[in-house]
């Protein structure tokens, strides 16, 4: 089947489509789409719950659902949690929100100055300038990292470490050392920390007394299991509850099953 749609279209949840889809404007995909997608202008939005099994060539794409296939975007690929891509991606700008996952190769290249004609997807992949794997902030947002950037990431890492322990992932000598160091660093940095930053994600944390105590407790628990202290059923349950509380407070929902290398120590 071939389908061409105009601006602000929508393939809703529960709807399945198989074939070639060509569109202009903005299209939301909340259903299941198989085939090939292309556009000369506009944005493809893969909504949460939406699944695309297709190679995609569009100007812009925002991924909140799942894409299984290669993506070429002439302007931008934007991952938003809990978006997931299994395939190679290529665009001048790639942004990834925490909680989104990606398995494949990423290439960036200089944006074209003129308007971009639609070309064959496979040809596009071969014709692009070969560049390097590029990750991190988009160029306009680049800056040196502040202490608070590191602090929030350290707490998220401690959550991952705890989840991996609870799910019996292997913990080798150096992983134990890394857990202990991270736990000590988090405990030290969060001790006596007060509220009041201008960053949105940190505002959500809003370090009230309870949250701070939870973080301190998580650090103590993580250090405990890394040092081999006995963890019975109820201690593990308490650790799990604490991980859930902190994950919710900082809106962090990474699934460790998506982190393949953790399965090997």
């Amino acid at each position, binding site marked *: 089947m071939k389908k061409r749609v105009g601006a602000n279209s929508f393939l809703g949840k529960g709807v399945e489509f198989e074939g070639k889809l060509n569109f202009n404007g903005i299209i939301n995909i909340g259903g299941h789409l198989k085939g090939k997608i292309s556009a000369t202008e506009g944005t493809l939005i893969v909504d949460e719950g939406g699944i695309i099994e297709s190679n995609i060539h569009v100007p812009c794409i925002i991924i909140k659902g799942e894409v299984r296939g290669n993506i070429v975007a002439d302007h931008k690929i934007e991952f938003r949690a809990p978006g997931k891509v299994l395939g190679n991606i290529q665009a001048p700008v790639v942004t*990834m929100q*925490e909680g*989104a*996952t*990606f*398995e494949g*190769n*990423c290439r960036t290249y200089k944006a074209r100055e003129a308007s971009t004609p639609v070309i064959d997807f496979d040809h596009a992949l071969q014709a692009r300038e070969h*560049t*390097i*794997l*590029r*990750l*991190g*902030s*988009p*160029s*306009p*947002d*680049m*800056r*040196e*990292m*502040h*202490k608070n*950037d*590191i602090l929030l*990431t*350290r707490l*998220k*890492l401690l959550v*991952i*470490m705890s989840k991996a322990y609870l799910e019996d992932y*292997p913990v*080798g*000598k*150096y*992983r134990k*050392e*890394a*857990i202990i*160091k*991270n736990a000590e*660093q988090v405990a030290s940095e969060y001790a006596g920390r007060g509220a009041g930053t201008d960053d949105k994600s940190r505002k959500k944390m809003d370090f009230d007394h309870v949250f701070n105590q939870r973080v301190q407790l998580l650090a103590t628990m993580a250090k405990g299991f890394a040092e081999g202290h006995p963890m019975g059923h109820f201690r593990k349950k308490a650790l799990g509850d604490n991980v859930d509380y902190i994950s919710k407070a900082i809106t962090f929902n*990474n699934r460790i099953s998506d*982190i*393949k*290398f*953790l399965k*090997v*120590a």
Partner: protein
Amino acid sequence: MQDVKIAVVGDDKIVRDHVVNLLMYCVNREILSFEDGFTAWNYLEGSDSPDIIFFSDVNMPEMNGLELLTKIKEKYPHKICIMMSGDPANEKLAMELGADAFLAKPFNMNDLFNIVETLIVTD
């Protein structure tokens, strides 16, 4: 990656220690740490290690990351170098000098996980 060593190079101790900590957890092995390019290069030249993967900051005293990248790629073109910077101007330079990846600051945990999965843990 049995014999591969990983080195983190940068003069900002907070960032460097964090990257070392995260990588140590990811790959369950000791991570080397250097505070400037000159020290890292001297280690490389005096090392019998078959392979080292470098995570290097760009702005550093003594020998900056781009100078280190240039020297490494000239003598050891197959060694993997990942450059980290908060300055957009360094992205193009890193690419031209042969960097294998560019990590634009501020980066998050998933960015480092992706680097590990793509360039380090190949199984």
